């Protein structure tokens, strides 16, 4: 199995879930299809969905909920 990392396309704050009391988009062990939303990055008071750019199984979150992230930073690791 190969591993693939989903990166952030904008700087901002990473969120695992669509709103504070909602379930996370995905959890470790979940399988995702290409185009599935795996998190949110908030910047300039707007929310940008982070989409899986490959299909696979989520093996790790590489940043904590509410961590600040930069452009190109690895967010989620997939086993493909």
């Amino acid at each position: 199995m190969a591993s693939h990392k989903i990166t952030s396309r904008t700087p901002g704050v990473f969120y695992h879930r669509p709103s504070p009391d909602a379930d996370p988009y995905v959890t470790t062990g979940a399988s995702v299809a290409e185009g599935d939303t795996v998190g949110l990055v908030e910047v300039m008071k707007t929310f940008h969905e982070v989409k899986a750019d490959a299909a696979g199984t989520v093996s790790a979150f590489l940043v904590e909920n509410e961590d600040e992230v930069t452009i190109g930073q690895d967010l989620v690791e997939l086993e493909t």
Partner: protein
Amino acid sequence: MSVIVRDPGLETTVQDTGRLGYYSIGFPPSGALDSFAYHVGNALVGNEPGAAGLEAVYLGPTLEFTQDTVIAVTGADIPAFVDDAEIPTWESVAVPAGSVLSFGQLRAGARPYVAVAGGIDVPLYYGSRSTYTLVGIGGFQGRALRAGDELPFGSLARDPRAGRRVDDADIPSHPSTAEVHLLVGLHSYRLTEDSLARFTDTEWKVTPDANRVGYRFRGAELEFVPREQPFGAGSDPANVTDCGYPVGSVQVPGGVEPIVLLQDAVTGGGYATLGTVVSVDRDRLAQTKTGDRTRFVPVDLDGALEVRRDRLAALDRIRSALAS
């Protein structure tokens, strides 16, 4: 005769030189945050100065052109593609009808600009085509672009031509620590001496709250000189009696997280103004992104005027070279 928005990116707006002359009645100017990149873009495609272009942030838009035209991408360092072939930036490029402009991942800076021959033709509102999204006026329907929007080309092309190029030496680099010049005042006396020194010694980090209204920074705490507040100033030591805010002015609500007000900001209020970023250095600020760092370098009034004169002279020189 138009550009069709296939994907708007994060927040792409129509901007020009701004809506000048209404500040006194509470209207901020809006307009391109990186004025240099905007003006050079127009010069590259051979537009009249003041033609409207597009300003994006972090994520470039995907745009389809419905007729042959000439475009130029300036501003942030970002790969740009026409129909999947990479095109040079800071250079005018001919694009055929039906072609699609798209962008890769930003390398440095924050805001790419797209100039199109003729400019973007949206109605003038109080003398400007700039979008002011907070109250929904100007630009395209007063808002950021959405997928499916169709923007007509304007008629402000003077001499559209592909192959014009800005000299490498004139292309701004976008270091991750930006230095901007600061004219100290009007209320810098409200900070303790130590705190004012700390303000200009600190490398401030750009927070996620950084947009066309203003940039909020983190990095140090500042203390105000204790005093009995004058009538009308309220009890917060960061407050003064209401006054006008210069564009580019710096305020520090609560003594933490200073804010630099930009082209879409409120025009007045009751926070003490520590200083004002020299107008031409707002271009540099506009190309910093969340997580980047900024240093404020103090200058006196003569120094500020010199910075402005030099930068505007460079712009004139570049525009003349491109026009010949």
